[in-house]
């Protein structure tokens, strides 16, 4: 029987996942994941300096292994039914390459040099460089190159490139150009990695390199030159206009077809950053916000360019053309901590368990270990259940800026906090307060969009937390007064990349059509309960007020 499969690849922070998907209905027929070997050994990293680098071989080895694994699961001959491959990766994750587009770390003389590898998104070594870039980009001859993305982050493309070139003279000398992880993979698979002509994706180009049609491309050569002539040099070799994720980059090379165990007619589609692929996979469309909830969140929307003209959204989100759905502006906001807040709370309560229980002589070691494990695993579920039963609205207000604030109005210096603790405040109430803080952080993002004329009718959530915590989901629905749909997908990003491949290979006209056929639905829909609106409105006002005071306290501290 003839089958048509596409493969979606999701390069995450620790591992890569591959899904083999039936193009007609989006069903997963095979999947696998594979960790990065060197990365798991903590090589090339220095967490104390926030330096996180990944070796290109880590990507390639894990990639081949997990594609083969997923194909095995998909059944005999699955490789012969594959029609397309699509990719998403973390980002901004750039890497210096030579004139042929080979990552420097793949050359013998740079094989062990972290500066010659991929600079993982969470690498924060370029804080100083980001400051310099912000100073120039925010007003260069009157042009504000930051007006679509807001403050330039140290995690992004130009900052990392500048940092790499400043700390490593050899890398600077040899690096003819730089590539994003998500651009390099499709380029490599199709055999054209020449930096001057290779594929570059709209998503990373717009959000991280600041490519915009209003600027006529990247920030002007003059502007880049003002920051550092090396940036202009890099831009000179970034000549190709970025392409959308559904772009047909080419046909897979013979060599790669063989290595992956697929046929030689496979079409290589475009790519995007991971969260954006997740939004596509989960079903993003106009007026529907997709919220990927993990340790932090990414909140994504699409809108027609015409309707965004003249709206100032730089405090509310980053915008890039074609970054999520081709033909639309992709908008991306985020909360710096969400799941992390729960983890923080658990770690806090685990202190006596981990410390005292470990020291006790009352029980034997084996029981100790089992007990600690049990408490750790059950704590959040158990306390969630307890919190579910406490309906009273408390005096306690928690502010969720434990990891600074991203949107709206970015401020990385502010900290989390609590007001309203009493002698009666217990762990359950505190936990509920923390969840509420995370939920109100989400509401602030939504309100900021809506008050700027961006309509949002419903919210689709993706990730482990939405599936596990009905309490948070109902709170979100009530506080935001909108239905919350929980996506069925476990691999939303890889599903999105598979959709890129399905369109690139010609099965569907566009992503909207692919979504209609390949969407696997929702596991639950939480409807907002009107009786709770008044309560959450009141608590939300309080949250805003306490937050403002905390911000003022921080401003005074920053002022010295």
């Amino acid at each position, binding site marked *: 029987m003839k089958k048509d499969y596409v493969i979606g690849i999701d390069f995450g922070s620790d591992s890569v996942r591959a899904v083999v998907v039936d193009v007609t209905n989006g069903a997963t027929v095979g999947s696998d994941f594979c960790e990065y070997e060197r990365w798991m050994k903590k090589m090339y990293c220095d967490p104390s300096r926030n330096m996180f680098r990944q070796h290109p071989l880590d990507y390639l080895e894990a990639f081949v292994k997990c594609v083969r694994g997923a194909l095995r699961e998909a059944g005999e001959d699955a490789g012969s039914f594959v029609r397309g491959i699509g990719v998403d990766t973390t980002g901004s994750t750039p890497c210096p390459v030579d004139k042929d587009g080979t990552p420097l770390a793949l050359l013998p003389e740079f094989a062990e040099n972290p500066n010659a590898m991929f600079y993982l998104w969470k690498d924060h070594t370029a804080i100083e460089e980001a400051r310099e870039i912000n100073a120039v980009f925010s*007003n260069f*001859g*009157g*042009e*504000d190159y930051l007006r679509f993305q807001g403050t330039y982050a140290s995690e992004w493309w130009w900052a990392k490139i500048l940092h790499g070139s400043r700390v490593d003279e050899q890398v600077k000398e040899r690096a003819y150009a730089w590539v994003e992880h998500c651009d390099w993979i499709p380029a490599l698979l199709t055999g054209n990695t020449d930096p001057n002509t290779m594929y570059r994706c709209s998503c990373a180009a717009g959000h991280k390199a600041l490519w915009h049609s*209003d600027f006529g491309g990247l920030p002007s050569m003059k502007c880049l030159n003002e920051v550092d002539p090396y940036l202009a040099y890099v831009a000179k070799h970034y000549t190709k206009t970025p392409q959308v994720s559904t772009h047909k980059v080419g046909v897979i090379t013979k060599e790669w077809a063989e290595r992956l165990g697929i046929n030689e007619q496979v079409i290589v589609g475009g790519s995007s950053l991971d969260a954006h692929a997740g939004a596509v996979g989960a079903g993003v469309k106009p007026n529907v916000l997709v919220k990927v909830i993990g340790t932090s969140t990414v909140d994504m929307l699409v809108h027609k*360019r*015409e309707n965004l*003209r*003249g709206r*100032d959204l730089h*405090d509310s989100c980053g915008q890039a053309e074609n970054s999520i759905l081709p033909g639309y502006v992709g908008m991306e906001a985020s909360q710096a901590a969400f799941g992390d807040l729960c983890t923080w709370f658990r770690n806090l309560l685990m202190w006596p368990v981990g410390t005292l229980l470990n020291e006790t002589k009352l029980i034997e070691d084996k029981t100790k270990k089992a007990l600690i494990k049990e408490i750790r695993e059950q704590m959040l579920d158990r306390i969630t259940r307890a919190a579910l039963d406490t309906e009273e609205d408390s005096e306690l207000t928690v502010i969720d800026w434990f990891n600074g604030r991203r949107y709206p*109005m970015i*401020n990385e210096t502010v900290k989390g906090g609590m007001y309203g603790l009493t002698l009666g405040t217990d762990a359950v109430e505190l936990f509920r307060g923390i969840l509420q803080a995370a939920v109100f952080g989400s509401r602030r993002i939504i*309100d*900021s969009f*809506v*008050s*700027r*004329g961006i309509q949002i009718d419903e919210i689709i959530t993706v990730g482990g937390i939405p599936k596990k915590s009905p309490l948070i989901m109902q709170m979100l629905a009530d506080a935001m007064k909108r239905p919350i749909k929980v996506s069925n997908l476990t691999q939303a990003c890889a599903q999105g990349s598979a959709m890129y491949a399905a369109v690139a290979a010609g099965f569907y006209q566009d992503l909207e059509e692919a979504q209609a056929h390949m969407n696997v639905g929702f596991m639950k829909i939480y409807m907002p309960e009107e009786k709770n609106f008044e309560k959450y*409105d009141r608590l*939300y*006002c309080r949250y*805003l*007020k306490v*937050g*403002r005071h905390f*911000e*003022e306290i921080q*401003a005074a501290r920053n002022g010295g």
Partner: protein
Amino acid sequence: MEKVDRSVVNMANKVNVLRILWENKCIFRAEIARMTGLSQPTVLKIVDEFMERGLVNISGKGISSGGKPPLMLEFRWDAYYIIGVDINEYRIEIILMDLSFDIIDKRIQDNREVDTADTILKRLADEIRGLISEHPGEESRILGIGVGIPGIVDAQKGILIYSTELGWKNVNLKEYLKQYFDGQITIDDSTRAFAIEEKIFGKGKDVKNFLCLNLASGIGSALVMDGNLYYGSSGSSGQLGHVAVEREGPLCSCGNYGCLEHYASGRAIEEAARRVVEEHRESQITDLVYGDAGKVDLNIVFEAAMGGDSTALEILEKASDYLAMAVSGVVNLTDPEMIICEGKISRECPIFMEMFKRALRRRGMKYVGREVEIVISNTKSYMGSFGSASFILEQFIQSGGEAERFVRIRGNSNQRLDYVG
């Protein structure tokens, strides 16, 4: 004497028939005759002339109830093209469209902080030239360039006299564009452009008397009276923002005191909200910007109002009431059937619009304007350039479909006129 009369009548008939053809995608000749009250042979003659000029096609045959089946006539949208331009403080929008206002191609450019009248006009001319030369198929059949710009405009001379939005004064736009292009060029106030667009396509289609309000950072207005756009003696009618609403109010840049602009415009709302933060008053406005007055914009006020904040609601309430004061005067004076609103405030703040409606009802006379309907323009499809292009379309129809002069790019035009006064 008789001869002159006949040609006037002929022209009126032509205009009439052309408008019906334009408004109805397909129509039978007999139906035109019925709608206009003209004789069949007259209609036949006019339609033949249009057909000769390529304005009308025969699209097919209808069903006959015996005898020769009637011929279905179809307006040819692609007979000619129009370039519509909209300039505002945020962007320039240039659209090449056909006669049904279907977009053939467009150029949209955000204005930058550095931009002056000089650089914006230069970019405008460059972009129009680019747009024309990239469409060789349409190039020779462009009826004209219609430009809309917010402010006081002398439409006859094509001069922008003053614009608060752009901060321009005495800019001779028409003269400037004439350096680069031959052919028909119209310059008009963008609220008037919006009004004529509403009259042709929008909610004002079958309304004889209506008022258009543009509620954005400034306040614009335009009146359609008896089906015609009202200009006034010097072409500067519609200065609603400069109607005085406070006797002791501050001096306005226009020369008057206590103008509506100071109380009800987006700028005024923003200013009031900024003061709240500066004075550190307890309000959600202060909270939403985390105490930083520099972050206040209109949307923050909307967000606070959405959250039920009393200070924000009060600011909007006050602004909407001032607006209603001025508008109720216009209603009493002109007795419109409808008020059509456009602009950031009407599009993004339903709370304000509700307040405005209530205030207007409260301030309405017992005897006049009881039925006036307040609506928001159908924003999804609206682009400012359609309004600007409507002037060209209207002139084309008024001329009975005559098109002798087309837009042409002028050859070498390096010398620049002194167009900024």
